[in-house]
């Protein structure tokens, strides 16, 4: 299924966080959202997920999602890996993974093998308390938990934040594997160059609006990236 965001507006009181944003993510695509702090990247994901009030349109194929409660958006086929991971530290790793089943549309299906195949470390530590995992392992757990829902669209909010470079590699390798599985991925990141290289296209946001769209061929063009950020 494809995600179509059209003319999205998000306001927090007097702050206009997202202004008329439109984008499309097709199955098997990674679309990046990059830009400075406060550009409206996370607000866009929150609005899609039903976590923030918004106007405009968010459609999964032809189904309108805007106005739905977060749990209903999750059960429609969209999963969010939130910023800061927000795993349940006091639950076991496996219980965290099983929570992802709440968003799965095929009732009664509880198979976790596909996710454990993608993240063997999550399988290995499944009996441990989730709070005992390292930051990188927690990030893999957060992505695994989202994938358990078998979503059509995966939203990721700063998945590499605070991770060591070697762990960032693991996360981006996982994203490539997820793309291979045919999911539509919307990736919010601060690591602009890495995101532009990994994405089919990347939208540069500033002041809540798309300023520029870059392709993977632009990843090496530092001047263009810097100009986009300063625009």
């Amino acid at each position: 299924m494809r995600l179509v965001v059209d003319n999205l507006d998000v306001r927090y009181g007097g702050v206009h966080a997202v202004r008329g944003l439109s984008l499309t993510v097709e199955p098997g695509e990674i679309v990046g959202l990059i830009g400075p702090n406060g550009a409206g990247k996370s607000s866009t994901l929150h609005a899609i997920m039903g976590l923030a009030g918004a106007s405009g349109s968010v459609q999964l194929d032809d189904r309108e999602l805007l106005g739905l409660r977060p749990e209903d958006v999750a059960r429609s086929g969209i999963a969010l890996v939130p910023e800061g991971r927000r795993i349940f530290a006091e639950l076991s790793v496996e219980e965290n993974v099983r929570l992802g089943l709440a968003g799965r549309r095929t009732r009664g299906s509880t198979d976790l093998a596909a996710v454990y195949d993608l993240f063997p470390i999550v399988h290995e530590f499944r009996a441990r308390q989730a709070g005992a995992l390292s930051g990188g392992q927690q990030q893999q757990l957060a992505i695994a938990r989202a994938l358990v829902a078998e979503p059509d669209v995966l939203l990721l909010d700063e998945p590499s934040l605070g991770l060591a470079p070697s762990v960032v590699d693991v996360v981006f390798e996982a994203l490539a594997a997820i793309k291979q599985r045919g999911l539509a991925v919307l990736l919010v990141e601060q690591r602009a160059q890495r995101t532009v290289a990994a994405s089919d296209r990347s939208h540069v946001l500033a002041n809540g609006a798309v300023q520029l769209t870059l392709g993977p061929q632009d990843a090496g063009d530092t001047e263009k990236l810097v100009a986009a950020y300063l625009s």
Partner: protein
Amino acid sequence: MTVTWQNLADGLLLGSVYALMAVGIGLVFGVLRLVNFAYGQLVMAGAFALALASQWGWPAWAGIVLCFAVVLALSAAMEWVVFRPLRGHSPAVMLVATFAVAFLLQSIALLWFGSLGKIATSLTFLGRFWTIGGVDIRKIAIVAVIVAAVCLLLLSVLLERTEIGLHMRAASMDFSTARMLGVRANRVISFAVLISGALAAVVAVMLTVQTPLVTPDFALRDTIVVLAGVVVGGLNRPIPATLGGFAIGFATGVLGGALPTDQSQYLPTFVFVAVILVLLVRPRGLFDFSRTVERV
């Protein structure tokens, strides 16, 4: 002051009852971050149902069924009419709403049954004594301990081994993230409110054996003491909250029996001074030993 085996048995009885009340209050607090001050009035309503069943000559089991039906119906009504429409409002609004519900239910009881109340007699046989090793112990003390243990065990299995239990635990830790994963907020909250109501019905049955005279302020004092116990134990976590409820019930039961008659009016003073001292020394709660998890 002399503590006898009988006093200890009374302490166990009250501790068990208060532990169940603490779980009931703690479950709703876990998912709604709301202290339900109307919890005592749910117990009162169940006790009146038992009293009415006694008055109508119904057998004990029918009275218990009526008690559960009334308390569960009121719990469901509370969730649908009060909690759900106010969800998303500030905690202060929700808190005041539970006060309003408490006064409403108490006023209705006063209008319907009068201030003198009614007597629940169908379970008085549980108030008689068994002699065990030369010590007279009321049957209800043993029944209460067994019933509380079974209820807590069943609840533990529900929370640890079922999907809805996992969802409830996750919701009590971070409701926003749980919803984002697809956990249905209304289902989890309704379930917690109903389980809490079922526990209130169990408490109503046990308290009416201990105190057969049911008045509109029935269980009001118990609820206040349990709330103090829950805070002493640790409001944020179910096990410490339950232990807090048990501890304050046990202390109240033992002291209530052991204090000389001319000093028994000071019992609440002793209990609440102890509560204040505990909170000064351990503000997170007496039984909350949680700490940051060490990473691998």
